[in-house]
């Protein structure tokens, strides 16, 4: 049994922190994509024609019920052969955003369903155009109450970004792996990565709980 080596830990820290930056970047961009796409799906669920509703439903269910890792491989290997070449990070962000958009779609749907019917009726009574009903009446109320739920999915995404290491993105896990491969010491870098995840995710989840209490109806 070997003991913990602090000087080695210090030595790998800069690389790990650089990896953390990539991890945070992927999470941030992925969340933006998931928020936007999720809203598109949620609105498509309410489309007037079933020719839109059903295919969107099917795609969303499929993406949600299959592993993100395999989806990432699919995007990583198949997109270039279709003539679309992106950086691994861009592919990863797209995969992450697409996967989580199927979760945020349900969150938005619940938020929209939660808007009291009186709001719809009032908007109709004022004969507001449909666009304005959504943008000025329904969505502001729907989104406000789902912010904590969306925040929880950001945390979940953050914890899933290590999967991007499998498609060669230099995130925290990949950096730890490379450091380990170089020195044959995996214990320190991987332990530090695991702890960093807890150190960031736990306070953020407390924040979301507090937000939930404040915004709670």
């Amino acid at each position, binding site marked *: *049994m*070997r003991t913990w080596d602090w000087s080695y830990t210090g030595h790998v820290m800069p690389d790990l922190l650089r990896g953390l930056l990539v991890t945070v970047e992927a999470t941030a961009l992925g969340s933006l994509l998931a928020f936007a796409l999720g809203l598109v799906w949620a609105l498509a669920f309410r489309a007037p024609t079933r020719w839109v509703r059903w295919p969107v439903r099917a795609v969303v269910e*499929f993406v949600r*019920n*299959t*592993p*993100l*890792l*395999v*989806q990432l*491989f*699919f995007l990583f*290997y*198949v997109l270039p*052969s279709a003539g679309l070449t992106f950086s691994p990070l861009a592919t990863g962000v797209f995969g992450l955003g697409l996967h989580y958009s199927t979760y945020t779609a349900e969150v938005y749907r619940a938020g929209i369903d939660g808007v009291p019917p009186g709001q719809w009726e009032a908007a109709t009574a004022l004969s507001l155009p449909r666009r304005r009903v959504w943008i000025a009446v329904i969505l502001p109320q729907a989104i406000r109450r789902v912010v904590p739920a969306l925040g929880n999915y950001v945390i979940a995404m953050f*914890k*899933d*970004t*290590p*999967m991007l*290491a*499998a498609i060669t993105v230099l995130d925290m*896990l990949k950096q*730890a*792996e490379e450091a*380990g491969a170089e020195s044959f*010491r*995996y*214990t320190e870098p*991987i*332990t530090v*990565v*695991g*702890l960093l*995840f*807890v150190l960031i*995710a*736990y306070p953020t*989840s407390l924040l979301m709980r507090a937000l939930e209490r404040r915004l709670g109806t």
Partner: protein
Amino acid sequence: MTTGLYELLLRGLWLTVQLTVFSAVLAAAVAFLAGLARLSRRWIVRFVAGVYVEFFRGTSALVLMFWLFFALPLLGWQLAALWAGTLALGLSYGAYGSEIVRGALRAVPPAQREAAIALSFTPAQRMLRVLLPQALPEMVPPFANLLVELLKGTALASVLGIGELAFSAQLVRLATGDSAQVYAIILVMYFVVAFVITRAMRLLERRAKASVGRAPGRSRGRPTRVPPGAIDPAVGATATVGGGTAGGGTAGGASPGTAAAGGTATGGDVA
């Protein structure tokens, strides 16, 4: 793709199913243990369980898997890849599951617990015969979601070199060079397994609800509103607690009349 390669994928699928079952069993055990511990009367038990849950919910399952596989051996233990994968999945999804167990137990009306105390049930009887049977049906739908998440999580085990579905797909991709085909096939395979899990759990939910005399789920559209009195006597009638005695107690939650009747009947029993 040749038949040999299909066979490889099917063998991978079988290992994925095995991995899912093993880690689901472990996760369920951990979930109940930690979920009950978090409701314990002793603060130290609650605290330890809380640290476990927050830690494993806070870290990434993939990092945990790497840690169990690469870092643990250097501290003195070597785990086979399959067990490292099972342990990592079981422990992290068990932490999520413990929140489900805790939430469902806390959602049982407090009168049930009070009634069990009044009937001088031991704490174990109270949990096993009154609280858990009523909490279980509430746990099934969120557990179904968690099981699908667990199935998706097994793909992570491929990074440890476990020959499950995602790993077999890598091998096939290297053999044929046609990544679109093989990944499309295994995505469909995962989807089919997830679909089977969802359906099976829905069946389980109906049976669990029926066993405590509750309506078999919201079948379609919005849940129908049922007046409070209409359901509770049914719960009382079929609750499995000591024959008719708890029946009176349970119904008592709804209407004071039956509560009194049940109370006296039980009082005689206990004395």
